[in-house]
């Protein structure tokens, strides 16, 4: 039976420089055992570098990395108790899938026969029993990906690292495989660090999400926290699109605050805001449009695109251009219509940055 031992991960003030370029500034992060944590961010944000430092493929310029409570900062990759699923899978093309899965076990000194038995078990775990004799090139993309996962899991690592594991799969398969990975992780209970730039993927699989920007952590929290209470305009925009609108906080009473945009007033969660000018992140589907020649918050449609199950509008208003998604396809409004802009639902949050 393959039972990875869930270990914790700690980054303490880790910094990484490549020549004059600082990839990671002072990163501190703790990952609890048994959790699946996603590093999410645009390309160049340092998430892959962070993962590679955890694997031992890069060494930090300063700071410490602990895995399962043990300082591994100076250890080379082959002496760390982690294993990694690569974006390209990196299956050895000249070895059968069974040999690929057994490779790590044999490297660690296990006898060939025993290693192959465990590898067989690993293939069974990912639903590829009996496919061991095939070469990677003879497997479909999804099967290759599962061999890569089995190859990493049979080592029973304290932490499993996944570097954009779905990016080489087509859209339909992606949804299925991400469910499988999450299901496997919850069943076996291992710690996993998952790197992706796709926020849907991150929302779907994670216990916690760490959003990175420019080599630092921008915000971390549960998927729900990040979506509903983004700390900054960057995060609001990154976790699903958002319109950032200037507003005035009129009054704060307890958990709620009253804000005003144009002449329109609305109540939102206060999130420690103080009265005065502030910024509001508004999801495109939290905006209502009604045809009207005069309104508290007037706007004028400049573009409209019919997309089957919804209509997308661009609306010019006094505080800037808004992007709106309206499910009411039966009354699509033409461009140059004057509208009254309103807010609805939960997709509106006060932000600080």
């Amino acid at each position, binding site marked *: 039976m393959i039972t990875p031992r869930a270990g914790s991960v700690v980054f303490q003030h880790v910094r990484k420089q490549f020549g004059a370029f600082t990839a990671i500034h002072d990163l501190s992060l703790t990952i609890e055992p048994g959790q699946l944590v996603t590093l999410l961010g645009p*390309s*160049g944000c340092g998430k*892959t*570098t962070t993962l590679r430092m955890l*694997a*031992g*493929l*890069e*060494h930090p310029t300063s700071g410490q990395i602990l895995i399962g409570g043990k300082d591994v900062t*100076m*250890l*080379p*990759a*082959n*002496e*760390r108790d*982690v*294993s*990694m699923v*690569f*974006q*390209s*899978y*990196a*299956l*050895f*093309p*000249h070895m059968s899938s069974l040999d690929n899965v057994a*490779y*790590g076990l044999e*490297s*660690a*000194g296990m006898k060939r026969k025993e290693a192959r038995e465990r590898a067989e078990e690993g293939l069974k775990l990912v639903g590829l029993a009996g496919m061991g004799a095939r*070469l*990677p*090139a003879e*497997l479909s*993309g999804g099967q*290759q990906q599962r061999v890569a996962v089995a*190859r*990493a899991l049979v*080592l029973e690592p304290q932490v499993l*690292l996944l570097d954009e594991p779905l*990016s*080489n799969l087509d859209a339909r398969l992606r949804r299925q495989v991400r469910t499988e990975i999450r299901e496997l992780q919850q069943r076996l209970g291992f710690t996993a660090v998952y790197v992706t730039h796709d926020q849907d993927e991150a929302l779907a699989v994670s216990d916690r999400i760490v959003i990175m920007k420019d080599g630092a952590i921008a915000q971390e929290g549960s998927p729900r926290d990040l979506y509903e209470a983004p700390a900054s305009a960057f995060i609001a925009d990154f976790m699903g699109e958002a319109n950032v609108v200037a507003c005035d906080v009129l009054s704060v009473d307890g958990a709620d605050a009253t804000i005003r945009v144009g002449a329109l007033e609305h109540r939102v969660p206060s999130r420690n805001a103080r009265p005065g000018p502030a910024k509001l992140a508004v999801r495109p589907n939290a905006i209502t449009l009604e045809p009207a020649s005069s309104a508290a918050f007037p706007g004028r449609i400049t573009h409209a695109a019919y997309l089957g199950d919804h209509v997308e509008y661009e609306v010019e208003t006094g505080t800037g251009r808004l992007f709106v998604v309206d499910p009411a396809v039966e009354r699509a409004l033409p461009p140059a219509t004057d509208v009254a802009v309103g807010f609805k639902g939960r997709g509106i949050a006060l932000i600080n940055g």
Partner: protein
Amino acid sequence: MDTGKDNRNRRLDITLGLGIFAFLLIPWYRIEGGFLSFGWLPGFPGEASVAPGLLQILLHGRWWLVIAALMLAVAGVARITKDPRRRGALLVLSGAIGVLFLTLQGLAIGYSGWAWTISDRLFAALPDGQPSMGAGAMLSALVFVLLFSFGLAERGAMKGDAFVVASIALLIFLVAIFVFYPVGSMLIGAFQDFDGSLNPAGFTRNIQDPAIWSLGCVLGGDRCGVAWRTLWLAIMTAGGSTIMGLAFALVATRTRFPFKKGLRLLTVLPIITPPFVIGLALTLLFGRAGVVTEALSSLFGIEPGRWLYGMTGIWIAQVLSFTPISFLVLIGVVEGVSPSMEEASQTLRADRWRTFWRVSLPLMKPGIANAFLIGFIESMADFGNPLVLGGSHGVLSTEIFFAVVGSQNDPSRAAVLAIILLCFTLTAFLAQRYWLSGKNFATVTGKGDSGAHIALPRPLSIGVHVLVVPWMLFTVVIYGMILFGGFVKTWGLDNSLTLDHYARAFSVEMRDGVLSWTGVAWNSFWTTMEIALISAPLTAAVGLLTAYIIVRQKFVGRNVFEFALMMSFAIPGTVIGISYIMAFNLPPLEMTGTALILIACFVFRNMPVGVRGGIAAMSQLDKSLDEASLTLRATSLRTVRKVILPLLRPAITAALVYSFVRAITSISAVIFLVSAEYNMATSYIVGLVENGEYGVAIAYSSMLIVVMIVIIASFQLLVGERRLRRENRVAGLTTAPSPLLAQEKAA
């Protein structure tokens, strides 16, 4: 379980054991009859000449070696040190001091005591000197290099990867010994007398010699100095072979020439042709007793002249020899120009002529410059053709040779000439690297670039055909001469056919039921095969290891490392030869007259090509394969063995074949290094030519060409098969990682 620590201790134990073994159980100094003959066993360990390091200290007054023993002991202390950082520091210290000390004592203490007068003054005079380093000393040096690398790795260098650190350190160590030390010795040799004492007189006399620098031919005197003549010849040869190579490349890719397959065959020719063979064939055609000369003389009464023996002859031979190389470089360039650029130009109302001159040719320019520089370096380094055709009008490479072996016997002159030659080629090499680097427009991307190259404008098409067709016929005639010449009794005098020459060279007899190789060529033939067989795998190994480190590892000074290794490409063979003689004739390292010096010469001369092949092949392997292997608990050594080498098989085979064939055909460095015991085929053939035995020389040369064709063809078959299978296997994978690479670069 802490596997990492076990691993570190095990490799340290093995290395320390090796160090103790080297110090206690192997002769420290060089054994006269060779270490592997084991003639030293009876006298071991007591006699001074064969005693191991420890007894040299205790019994034979070589007290200074105690420092090396001490450093080994320091490493032993490190082994039982707990604190990892201090342990690493101790290892680095002991290794570094050990290597430096061994080098220093080797250089400072010669046969009869201190080699430098300054140390005589600083320390007391030594009663006794020491012979050259032997197996014990060399093994100890290796152990110290390893200790140094392990120490660095334990302190976190190269991500703590001991295999990588040790490989880099070893490569630098070897290149220092076999490239920089000899070239350095040669530079110093220019300022020395025969006995090794410092004497700048020889240098000042030679560097001002009008025979080298005279500008007589320009200023109205009789002739120019050898340096200017060589430079002029190199420029003419580079120009000629580049124009011919470009014409061939254009014909091969942009016309409907019917014999394109035959053109491709041309690319194999320079690899298998010993360098003096073209010159030899030219003498058979145009020499005083040549076919053409005789025919002209009898038909038109033209007096047989000696015009071939001089610059003109050398120039023709060199252009013939190097056109295929230039073709090889330029065909990639011409094919690499994206057809869509040419198509774009045509849609912008440009005709073929304008498209060629304004788009295609400018895009090829860096490649053409590259071909020119390669031709320049090759011409400078060429030794075989000038030797056969030069007569009294030598070039630098032959003058170097005659300065050593001839009646002059002036090593200082040889060194000065070699320095001048080295300056010319290194300048060209530097120009090639810095001026041309990053200027290659003609790149083949992975994206399918549809479209076809346009045909050449008509006048140009006629022009290149006019150049190419006669030249091809000429080449065919030349190689026909080579194969045919071996069957003619006495060229020019008695043109009857005979097998005598082959019989003299390769006869085999049965004597008393034992096969006996009675031909005169067998001895050098088998030596050549043996040395080529030993050096080929070493060359491939060193070349591919270097390529692995250059492509896969990032470290400070990587560019310098790469440059230093590739530089040996630009050192002409004659310079290597003369510098090896000067460096390895005296302690601390004596190798002249052995097979070892020939092998070392081949490995470090041919390595750059292995490196290039390895870099090209390795760049196509997705880096995440190595990384996956590392995260799967494999060491770098296991990664190289199990993942990289199996995937590089075609590159390995190519490197093996190339270095094998080069070891058979090269002459320039070899002619300095051969001995009675180890004579090589090429230098034997040159000896035959000097004795006027053209028939046997030609017969032997054709035999070599045939042998090499067989070897290349059989390897080609093997590699071809492998590649097909490999492509099938890798297909799914090599396509997938390319977007990854792009993303990783962005990230």
